[in-house]
């Protein structure tokens, strides 16, 4: 069974589970939730469409090699900081982010900055923030969360420096 199928099963299973709980609270609650969820969906689709369909173009004009070039072999704080910026600037989905990390590791990139890169990408890759997080969440929360997250790729790199390679 593929991972994607497993995730879909878990996802719809969870929807079914909470839906059942809502249904047992009474049909008005269930109907109101269904209506809320559907309205959210209808409102969000144009933005997701714009982002998903547009992200291919953004990824096409920021070549991966440029970002891989930022992840060199020397592991100082300057290199870690560069990796953090690279993580934030990486366009596209998880395939691109993790592939860049793998290429950097294989071509001799230092482990702390690759960790910093992956963690920074996970925390605040600009494309995910504007494509997914802003449409679904209050903008004030999103910017606050991103600002608060800035130190943590550095913390991850520091832990990596202390405990060593995988």
């Amino acid at each position, binding site marked *: 069974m593929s*991972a*994607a199928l497993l*995730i*879909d099963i878990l*996802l719809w299973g969870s929807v079914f589970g*909470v*839906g059942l709980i*809502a249904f047992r*609270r009474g049909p*008005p*609650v269930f109907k*109101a*939730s*269904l*209506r*809320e*969820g*559907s*309205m*959210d969906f209808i*409102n*969000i689709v144009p*933005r*997701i469409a*714009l*982002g*998903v*369909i*547009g992200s*291919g*173009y*953004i990824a*096409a*004009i920021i070549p991966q090699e440029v970002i891989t070039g930022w992840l060199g072999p020397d592991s100082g704080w300057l290199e870690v900081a560069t990796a953090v910026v690279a993580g934030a600037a990486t366009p596209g989905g*998880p*395939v691109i982010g*993790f592939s860049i*990390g*793998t290429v950097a590791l294989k071509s001799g990139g230092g482990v702390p900055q690759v960790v910093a890169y992956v*963690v920074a990408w*996970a*925390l605040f890759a600009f494309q*995910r923030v*504007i494509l*997914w*997080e802003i*449409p*679904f969440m209050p*903008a004030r*929360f999103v910017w*606050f*969360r991103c*600002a*608060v*997250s800035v130190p*943590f790729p550095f*913390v*991850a790199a520091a*832990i990596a420096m202390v405990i060593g390679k*995988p």
Partner: protein
Amino acid sequence: MLESSPKPPAPAEDAESEPRPGRARKPIGWSTIIIAALVAVSAALVWRRDGTDGVLEILTHDLSLFGGILPRVLAGCLLGAFISEILPHEKVSRSLGPKSGLMGLLIGTAFGAILPGGPFTAYPVASALLAVGADFGATIAMVVSWTLIGYGRAVAWEIPIMGTDFTLWRILISLPLPVLAGALGRFVYVRVYPKRAGDEEAA
């Protein structure tokens, strides 16, 4: 029918079964405008470099990607709506609110780690938690936990591409980060928004 009573029975139960009023939805904001501009400029650059074929090739690929994602976005929206409807406000504010302490951050972290799906579930659910009384700190712990130690992306993408050793090691390093990020979030929040934080405590 003996007597028609206009009064609703058992107000306490009724409060539970009464659906909450709908959330306010955002109109098209400036972030949509920025991304639209970014996409337009990028598409124009691709067109200049690769011509119409290049533009169409990316469009077909991304349209099929979009088609695959749509049902999951619907699942995420329904999950968020059901969760915000069934979670009792008082309990959420007690276990994930501003006064929930370390336990609130740990609950947020655990919730983010077990949440299935991708961004299409994490953000609607996080938004629902905020709406029913979780504070910024616990919600930050949840979002950071989902992105750093959640299994969804790790299983689907990170392990196949980066390998099991690196992924597990990276997750191990990330374990303390959601709680730390949530704690930092709380610490900063009461200083940046002292008035709001005071209101929430009074409420």
